[in-house]
């Protein structure tokens, strides 16, 4: 093998310009493939990072408006979820539901400490909200069950709002008393601000908000985590059952899909994953087609090489080279040319990806209200390198196959006759 490679080096050196021009096409193909895959990964990673801010296996339920007349009642009625629905979610669906909670909002409140104040809105939640929405507490704690039971007037404030109230040491606000409108609340935790959206929501116990703002038994929206629903069908079946049960509580048709809205993050994530796979496949296809033009180039050049070396192959055959020996020379040469320039393209592609990572990847886009990153880690992994290597070897073989067969068929008599 070493001798074969040494021999190929001897011949490749004789045609530097031609070999490098061909190589450029291959390098370009691989370069494009790597850059495309890297950019695709960047987009996918950014999307995934967004998704990671929620727990996948959770659903959120909103009240809607009936779209069907049912039980003597007209369509077009507003449905308000209430404590009863929350209780049903917890008890009747305990087979799948882990923890259920609800969320209520109150907007347009002013929070003040001494002279400083911020306008904010309140979000009443259950303790499980921390898990579902992955709230990160940087000081103090989140809402607990006792807060809920006793309707305590406590709150968790995002760090950016705390900074408005206590500019130099926002975390010192933890444990202090602040005024929410006219009511005194105790700050029990500082929440890490979420830069992907405006963090102006202050979190309070659900029951506290429900009582203070006279929501009666209304609960706004219900959210819960679940388990044991692995497939899309199982999820659909569960949603159907859930919808029928809740609809019935509100005298709405069990199959009325507009009476309540269900947002299932799990099936959403599943569909997202499907979409990502499609994107990834499409990128591979585009990249491979770019590479194809390079392969055709290599094949072309190898054909010319075979023609030029007809006499040499004739001599080799006359002194004992088998067709297999000749075939191998051409195919290995093709693989080496493809592989060598392919790897150059791959390295340049990595370089471009790193450049992308250093520029677009690390600079979040500042919209004023929130920040977002288009590319997260737009690079390709070891698996892709391996895949590309295999692609290169296969490509080289295919490119060399036709010329090699032609070379192997050379008849020594004819080759030696050609003066």
């Amino acid at each position, binding site marked *: 093998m070493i001798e074969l490679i040494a021999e190929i080096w001897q011949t490749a050196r004789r045609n530097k310009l031609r070999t490098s021009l061909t190589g450029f096409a291959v390098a370009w193909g691989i370069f494009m493939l790597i850059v495309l895959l890297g950019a695709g990964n960047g987009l996918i990673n950014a999307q995934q990072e967004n998704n990671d801010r929620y727990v996948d296996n959770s659903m959120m339920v909103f009240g809607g408006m009936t779209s069907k007349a049912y039980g003597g009642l007209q369509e077009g009625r507003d449905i308000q979820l209430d404590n009863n629905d929350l209780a049903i979610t917890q008890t009747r669906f305990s087979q799948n539901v882990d923890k259920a909670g609800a969320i209520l909002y109150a907007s347009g409140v002013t929070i003040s400490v001494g002279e400083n104040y911020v306008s904010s809105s309140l979000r009443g939640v259950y303790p499980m909200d921390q898990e579902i929405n992955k709230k990160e507490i940087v000081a103090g704690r989140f809402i607990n069950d006792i807060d809920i039971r006793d309707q305590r007037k406590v709150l968790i404030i995002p760090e950016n709002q705390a900074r408005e109230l206590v500019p130099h040491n926002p975390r010192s606000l933890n444990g202090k008393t602040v005024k929410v409108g006219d009511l005194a609340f105790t700050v029990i935790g500082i929440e890490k601000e979420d830069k992907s959206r405006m963090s102006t929501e202050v979190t309070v116990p659900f029951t506290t908000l429900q009582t203070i703002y006279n929501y009666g038994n209304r609960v706004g929206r219900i959210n819960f985590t679940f388990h044991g629903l692995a497939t899309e069908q199982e999820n659909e079946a569960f949603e159907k059952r859930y919808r029928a049960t809740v609809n019935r509580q509100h005298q709405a048709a069990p199959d009325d899909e507009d009476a309540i809205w269900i947002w299932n993050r799990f099936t959403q994530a599943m569909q997202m994953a499907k979409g990502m796979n499609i994107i990834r496949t499409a990128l591979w296809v585009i990249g491979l087609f770019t590479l194809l033009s390079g392969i055709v180039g290599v094949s072309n050049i190898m054909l010319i090489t075979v023609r030029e070396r007809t006499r040499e192959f004739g001599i080799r055959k006359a*002194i*004992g080279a088998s067709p297999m020996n000749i075939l191998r020379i051409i195919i290995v040469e093709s693989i080496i040319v493809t592989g060598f320039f392919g790897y150059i393209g791959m390295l340049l592609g990595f370089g471009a990806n790193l450049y992308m990572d250093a520029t677009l990847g690390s600079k979040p886009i500042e919209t004023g209200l929130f920040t977002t990153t288009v590319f997260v880690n737009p690079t390709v992994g070891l698996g892709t390198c391996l895949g590309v290597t295999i692609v290169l070897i296969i490509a080289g073989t295919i490119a060399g196959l036709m010329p090699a067969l032609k070379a192997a068929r050379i008849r020594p008599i004819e080759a030696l006759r050609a003066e």
Partner: protein
Amino acid sequence: MIHLHGVHKTYAGAQPLHVLKGIDLDIAEGELVSIMGASGSGKSTLLNILGILDDYDEGEYRLAGTLIKGLSETRAAEYRNRMIGFIFQSFNLIGFKTAVENVELPLFYQGVSRRKRHQMAMEELEKMGLTDWATHYPNEMSGGQRQRVAIARALVTRPQIILADEPTGALDSKTGVDVMELLKRLNREEKITMIIVTHDPNVASQTNRIIRIKDGVIEG
């Protein structure tokens, strides 16, 4: 060593060409023979068949007792490699390989190890008086030197027969004489069976036996 009996060869085509019309030929071990004939007489075709470069249609050809007929390309290559040494008019050395690399090539296809190969090739070049030229490329050598490299390449595998196609055709007369002397000496001293195809009567006259071919049959 060589036994041909009733060998026929026809080239297919729009107008089939019956080139060899029943060749009977026996060449004993250690003989130095020449084959003479005008162009189109079939001597090249005969040489190709003797060299297992081409197949024939009828009859039989035995080389050192082995029937050579209807071989696969791979087998033919193997037989060529082990039994036959070729010397061509235009030397047919590979231009981007040095003299010693050219001589090594048949051994490479036999799967001889690199070191052994190099050693054998150097010995052969030494016999030709070309030790100092071993690392030179063919285009740095004279015609006579090139032909001697080609002879070394033909001999390195210790073949049963040497087939030489106009070995002096591309050389000036003085060098041609030297090469002929070399071939004669090899035949005499190493008892190598040698077949020289030529149309030069001077060359033919130096051999033990002249085989004349005309219109696809052997004369006389």
